């Protein structure tokens, strides 16, 4: 086992464990906080995969933005005190069916991933990706990039509009 393997397993465990907490915890606040660790772990995985820019983006947007948003949402829709913090499940039957099907799904996915012989290219030398991303965003992907900008703008306006109290 080399260092890379160790780091990988470290992050993998963090991700799986914290994600399990997110999913299974009854207290919504716990879920929200453990989501932080999941995101953090994923960012670590990105670093491991030489995706420095994405990793930083992950930290900034997910942890700095989305998570904060979610926590705000939790705060605004849940009474902090008392049992209300706990969130119920949708019913035993659904819980069972959901669990079962999710397990089967996960199994299937793993099976598929393993049985597929992926095309593998020789790994490219690791350089900083920022420059390459920047260049392709403004050349090949200019239109999607602009569209995404507009999308964000619209999302912003839309969110403000929807959330507005009538």
């Amino acid at each position: 086992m080399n260092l890379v393997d160790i780091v990988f397993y470290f992050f993998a465990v963090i991700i799986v464990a914290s994600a399990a907490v997110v999913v299974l915890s009854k207290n919504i606040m716990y879920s929200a906080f453990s989501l932080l660790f999941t995101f953090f772990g994923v960012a670590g995985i990105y670093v491991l995969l030489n995706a420095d820019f994405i990793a930083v983006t992950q930290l900034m947007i997910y942890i700095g933005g989305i998570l904060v948003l979610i926590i705000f949402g939790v705060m605004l829709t849940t009474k902090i005190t008392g049992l209300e913090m706990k969130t119920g499940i949708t019913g035993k039957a659904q819980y069972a069916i959901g669990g079962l099907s999710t397990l089967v799904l996960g199994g299937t996915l793993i099976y598929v991933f393993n049985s597929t012989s992926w095309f593998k290219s020789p790994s490219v030398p690791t350089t900083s990706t920022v420059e390459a991303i920047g260049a392709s965003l403004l050349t090949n992907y200019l239109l999607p990039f602009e569209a995404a900008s507009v999308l964000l703008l619209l999302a912003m306006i839309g969110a403000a509009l929807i959330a507005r109290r009538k």
Partner: protein
Amino acid sequence: MSIGLNHYLILSAILFSLGIFAVISRKNAIMVLMGLELVLNSANINFIAFAKFGGMNIDGHIAAIFVIILAAAEAAIALAIVLNIYQNYKHVNVDEIDKLKE
């Protein structure tokens, strides 16, 4: 066996399944949202993994960036909707919101 593509894929598969489970089983709309975030993250792991091992190179990164952008937009809108639901129903329980039935 050193860490290769499959490891990452399996990791993402687990994360995906957990996310889907959250979406299906939890009552609270915000929990559903969190599940979705997990699903998106798992997808991103795949993109980046393929970027490194599958020859997607920078295109994979770009895809991941767009996913993140989408996620951000989605989160904003979804939370706004949740707030709206909360204003109307005084709760955010997804299973009780079944207007779609009619």
